[in-house]
């Protein structure tokens, strides 16, 4: 009978699911790291108004923002092998994990690029001029004066992107990655108890999202430590 909801099963599967938490976190860490790098790279042509490149990047960002992550996952999963086949590299046996990391990197890069661009634009132009006036070079002025101020502005949005990305990793199982949800699916197959296992998964996600949110909030407070109290307390 499907009616007897089994609380003890939740407690039983939680430790099993938690063994696969590192896989989820691995996706998150790699995708965030590479996403930030790529995000910085693709934000530059938009900031410097480099023709052609700027338009290509605008289309890229619009595409990533305009399609579901699930579709992007499938596009990368089927598209990258097809692309690499043109140069005679066979990646059909590659671990699905790489495809997942590539997808989330591409997706995060679009968000990060927009966040970085907006944050750099919020820094007053006078700051750059002041830096020049005391003899800093363009790169020095950017790295020492503009970037630290921009990061403070960008951080809350970056934190949001990371949290969304963490929730999005729950779709990695759809191309066959053995993460928490993937393990959950196999547990459902063996126990035929879907509700309990999805509840256990939800609890794990809820807890790690809350923890990540806490950690990011603390960081945000640290970044705002020099700000006057009114602006920092928001």
């Amino acid at each position: 009978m499907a009616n007897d909801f089994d609380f003890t099963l939740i407690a039983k599967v939680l430790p099993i699911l938690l063994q696969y938490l590192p896989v989820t976190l691995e996706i998150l860490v790699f995708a965030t790291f590479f996403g930030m790098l790529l995000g910085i790279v693709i934000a530059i042509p938009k900031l410097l108004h480099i023709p052609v490149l700027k338009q290509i990047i605008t289309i890229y960002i619009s595409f990533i923002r305009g399609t579901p992550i699930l579709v992007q996952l499938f596009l990368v999963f089927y598209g990258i092998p097809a692309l690499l086949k043109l140069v005679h590299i066979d990646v059909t046996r590659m671990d699905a994990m790489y495809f997942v990391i590539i997808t989330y990197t591409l997706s995060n890069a679009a968000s990060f690029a927009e966040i970085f661009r907006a944050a750099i634009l919020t820094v007053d132009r006078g700051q750059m001029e002041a830096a020049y006036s005391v003899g800093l070079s363009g790169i020095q002025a950017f790295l020492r004066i503009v970037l630290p101020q921009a990061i403070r502005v960008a951080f809350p949005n970056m934190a949001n992107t990371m949290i969304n990305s963490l929730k999005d990793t729950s779709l990695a199982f759809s191309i066959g990655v053995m993460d928490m949800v993937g393990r959950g699916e196999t547990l459902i197959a063996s126990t035929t108890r879907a509700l309990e296992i999805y509840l256990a998964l939800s609890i794990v996600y809820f807890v790690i999202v809350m923890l990540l949110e806490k950690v990011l909030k603390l960081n945000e407070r640290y970044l705002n430590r020099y700000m006057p109290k009114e602006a920092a307390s928001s």
Partner: protein
Amino acid sequence: MTIDFAFIFEALIEISKVLPLTLFMTVTPVILGILIGIIVAFVRIQQIKILAPMLNFYVSFFRGTPIIMHIMLVYFGIPIVVDVIAKALKIEYQSSSIPILFFVILALTLSAGAYASEIIRSGILSVPKGQLEAAYAVGLTFSQAMRRYILPQAFSKSIPNFTNVFIGFLHATSLAFFLSVKELTGVANIVASINLKFLEAFIAVGLIYWSVSAIVEWLAHRIEKRVTAYSKGGI
């Protein structure tokens, strides 16, 4: 493997036939979600006892878990509840007769309610308190002031956020694919499997989502311009 461009076009036509279903699955949860969101936001702003902590948990739970979990929990959880109630009331009703689409829309509605409530809350809190006081000063009641002054301003400020929610839920409907609902992604997968052309089918469905998102963004931008015309700033 080369990309079959003719097939992309073919798939585009085939897949776009279910666009109305996807739009229905997006619009219904967002509208119902906004209604839930208004109620939740008021309870949380007024800090009504017992109810407010419960709704706080509702919002943080739905914002803290992936949407696919909401769909799965509703899909597997609601039938159990329905069966128990039907048994207790001795009604001849089988939970298996509920269409899958209902579960998806219910899950997305609950989820949209949580996201919308945060947007409405921040929208209402962004309207200066002086507006409410001014409305009181001319003799309006609380609900009149809300309906005529505060909410219109709050909504017009929240349009970009609502656009994001709408597009987010347009994309979230793709998750119904896991329950084999025949919406855009589901049909794309069927078209792909029949013809064994996965890449082309997903390119086609990507293009559809992309164009719908672009149209929605453009429309929202125009609406925003219209409704915020009162606060042009300057002289």
